[in-house]
């Protein structure tokens, strides 16, 4: 079973088209193994991206270097998945 310990989901708000381009460039950095839940396309829609633990520092530095605003949407994805699984099991027993 694939685990997501330490993975964070970041919510990124680009403020101009240049920042959208920076985010699209980030999408191309496959070694970071990013999973874009919503993709960078325009400034009206925030970009949500799942970042593995090993890429967190690089991604946050990249965003900060480019003055791109972000917040942490999910702090530890595995915790949320575990709680979802636990809830399903409890409901099944019920």
């Amino acid at each position, binding site marked *: *079973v*694939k685990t*997501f310990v330490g993975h964070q*989901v970041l*919510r990124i708000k680009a403020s101009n088209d240049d920042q959208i381009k920076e985010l699209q460039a980030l999408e191309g950095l*496959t070694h970071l193994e990013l*999973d*874009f*839940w*919503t*993709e960078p*396309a*325009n400034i009206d*829609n*925030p970009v*949500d991206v*799942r970042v593995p633990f090993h890429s967190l520092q690089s991604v946050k530095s990249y965003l900060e270097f480019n003055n791109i605003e972000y917040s942490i*949407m*999910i702090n530890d*994805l595995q915790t*949320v*998945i575990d709680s*979802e699984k636990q*809830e*399903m099991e409890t*409901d*099944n027993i*019920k």
Partner: protein
Amino acid sequence: ERNSATFNYATYHTLDNLFKGLDAIVLDFKSLVTKQQIGTSTEGRPLYVLKFSTGASRPAIWIDAGIHSREWITQATALWVGYKLATDYGKDASITSLLNKFDVYLLVVTNPDGYVYSHTADRMWRKTRAPNSGSRCIGVDPNRNWNAGFGGPGASSDPCSDSYRGPSAESAVEVKNIANFIRSHGKIKGFVSIHSYSQLLLFPYGYKCTNPAHYTELNTVGRSAAAALSSLYGTQYKVGTICSTIYQASGGSIDWTYDIGIKYSFAFELRDTGRYGFLLPATQILPTAQETYLGLKKIMEHVRDNPY
């Protein structure tokens, strides 16, 4: 849980349990609902549609959910919608009138292999589970595999990408089965695909950034559906074409259906916006399903009242 009234719609279920839910609805509403298998997935799982019908040779409305397997709120919503349609027939005048004129086909789990995989191995799995020749990576994005601008912008040619389009249009057996069903039926007048998340109600086009011929009407219907949806809990939806609202994406289902003449082609992106993403808590299943049903109902009423 074999009884549709006691089935727990407010939790996420395994594929087997969802199928039990389908069977319970069929069993409890025998004169209205039947289950049809329209094909099998890559790994041999059945693609079951619920058919709601009160007569022969009717025009029909198609609704599917779960083409992207990790979007669990969509399969859960679709199952509840199926139960609601069945219980509303004969009680709700609008649904009764709809089902006296139209059949409704409901595909609750469009990508069953991916759904099982998202339960057992990788909660974040999105694609099918088809092997890709010459690659170690598995799966095709089934919403980039339809024959609508196939291979164009907004889809990947890399089998390792989550938006891999596949080697050719309809190469994904899940897509091929639905496309064959739609073509052979010949009287599908409305097509709705349910996705999550980000609260959008979309219509063609996605593979190109030009407005469809029926833009004004589709936009009006979409806005009316979004308003109905919002009336329950205040959930806000954006409405528009795929390209103008999110981004250019080729090979999508509703572009294909629109281009083959199904004027009323829409895609929902259900909750949420900014807290849980694909991990919407189970406590939100029923509210999401209830509000989505109001939006769906508006679209289905428009299809019913505007024959073409």
